[in-house]
């Protein structure tokens, strides 16, 4: 589905340093029963965010009013496990447009790019710099510039470039998804199929 174009994003950051955060944590299976793509943000990180009675757990970062923003700063190997795209829908629905980590799981990364959440892979050292800066000052802002492929810590100007393939980059900048591309070459696909 079409999503908002992504060019530059400057935002404060929500830090989540836990490693190996799997998609079962991002959205537990019992919340996957919808037949439409709406309202998943309410259950984002459900079991870390709420106790069994549904009361917010004060020590979880999403319940901490100190932190907010459109960028999630995550620990390494973020998004492993189940292929559920609902995990990205939940992040998007909650308001995140970008996830920064030193390492992403493959399917999760693909899913992000398909629905307009930008995954930015940074070096482990830079990730640590970002965590430290946000911890020292929660109002710290980060700027992600997709055209330049840079991520910058505004307070110090420290910056790193990130990888994204040219095709996906253009998609993100225009709010396109792959299906538009594929629908345009259906004839070619049909010929390929016939060759068997």
């Amino acid at each position: 589905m079409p999503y908002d174009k992504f060019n530059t994003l400057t935002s404060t950051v929500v830090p989540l340093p836990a490693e190996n955060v799997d998609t079962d944590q991002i959205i537990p299976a019992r919340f996957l029963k919808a037949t439409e793509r709406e309202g998943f943000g309410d259950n984002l990180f459900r079991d870390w965010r709420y106790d069994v009675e549904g009361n917010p757990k004060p020590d979880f970062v999403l319940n901490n009013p100190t932190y907010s923003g459109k960028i999630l700063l995550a620990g390494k190997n973020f998004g492993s496990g189940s292929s559920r795209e609902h995990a990205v829908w939940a992040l998007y629905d909650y308001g995140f447009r970008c996830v920064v980590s030193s390492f992403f799981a493959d399917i999760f990364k693909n899913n992000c790019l398909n629905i307009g959440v930008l995954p930015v892979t940074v070096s482990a050292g830079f990730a640590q710099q970002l965590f430290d800066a946000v911890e020292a000052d929660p109002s710290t802002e980060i700027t992600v510039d997709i055209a330049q492929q840079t991520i910058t810590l505004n307070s110090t100007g420290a910056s790193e470039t990130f990888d994204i393939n040219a095709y996906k980059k253009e998609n993100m900048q225009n709010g396109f998804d792959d299906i538009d591309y594929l629908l345009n070459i259906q004839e070619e696909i049909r010929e390929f199929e016939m060759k068997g």
Partner: protein
Amino acid sequence: MEKKTLFDKIWDAHVVRSVPNGPDVFFIDKHFIHEVTSPVAFLNLEKRGIGVMYPDRTIATPDHNVPTVDQDKTIKDKLSRMQVEKLRDNCKKHGIELHDLGSAHHGIVHVIGPELGVTQPGMTIVCGDSHTSTHGAFGAIAFGIGTSEVEMVLATQCIMQVKPKKMRITVDGELGKGVTSKDIILYIISKISAAGATGYFVEYAGSAITNLSMEARMTICNMSIEMGARGGLIAPDQTTYAYLKGKRYAPQGEAWEQAVAHWESLKTDDGAEFDLEYHYDAADIEPMITYGTNPGMGIKVKDRIPNADLLEGSNKTSFLKSLEYMGFAPDEPIKGKKVDYVFVGSCTNGRIEDIRAVAGFVKGKKKAANITAWIVPGSREVEKLAHEEGLVKILEEAGFELRQPGCSACLAMNDDKIPAGKYAVSTSNRNFEGRQGPGARTLLASPLTVAAVAVTGVIADPREVF
């Protein structure tokens, strides 16, 4: 001539075109769908006003959220019922073959695909489920996709993919007694880590792999995703052909001969290059179990939980957090710990061979009083065979509860949940926090180890119990 890996051969034959500096337009031979990751894809097709390009290349079954009792009745849970009904409607509307609840081939999508002979060597197969890698056991490129991609496959039979890097894992030698293919893969993941194969597609090779049955090969390929790999595959051979011959969708007669001739070419050429290779000796592998909250946290049942002193920084924090969730301490033995539940099932180990193994071991014994033992066949076909072979009787006499086919406690979307704080030794594939129910503590192991736990009531090494 250019030397190619098995993976290259299949991949290259399915590229419709390559986008300059971008992904390949990758053609998909077979597409499986289920009730949880497909409804939004169909909804989006409707919004775009387009249909399904090749309905006979998609096969559907409801498996993830279905109850495992009273499958002949209306599903009680409203949301589950809606998803299953949506799947039925969508299949009917678009002319997609559906193996519905109660029908002869209903079951977990990765169990029924091979059973029906839909899964064949050389194919490209996807499904909105990460364990689609299971089908790689037949020498196919099979991997999980997200719902946007499900929509693409329905609409155009293609997805856009960047070709992954290639890894080969070779396991040579003879497996010891009481050691299964589940132990091989848990061992490999414990060595490579839960993220160690991210970005790669794995080929499994070596005598310890080629000596395995198709069921056992599926267990290995199934868990490729648990080390971060997109998928895993094994070159087809006589074992593969023997399994497929006569299956409903397998080629027949002359077409069979032609197919086998083609499948024979699906091997990695001598001298073909991999980006990364690992070698293991089967003799080093023993019954394995996980102690933490990702599948890379595995040890031999006879070993102690690792000592945290060797770890540093964030690794140590994650490790300790994980042990805290599990209620374990560093450096303590895992054997002898009390267990509450055992679960035999899932697309990893819910096939007939797994049920035979468990029944063979518990025959004439009783489960321990503290254990609740669930056995959930991967499909109706498995269930039927288990009855015919007298396995159900053996298992029920031992105190196991047989439930109807589905994903069940593997992901606990239905009522089959392990209560908070309880320990479950499970033949499934994920031990994430809350995977088997909020607060549930999961330890992954082979069907034989699970059988040993069921009988003793504690974590046990199957070689010492039987």
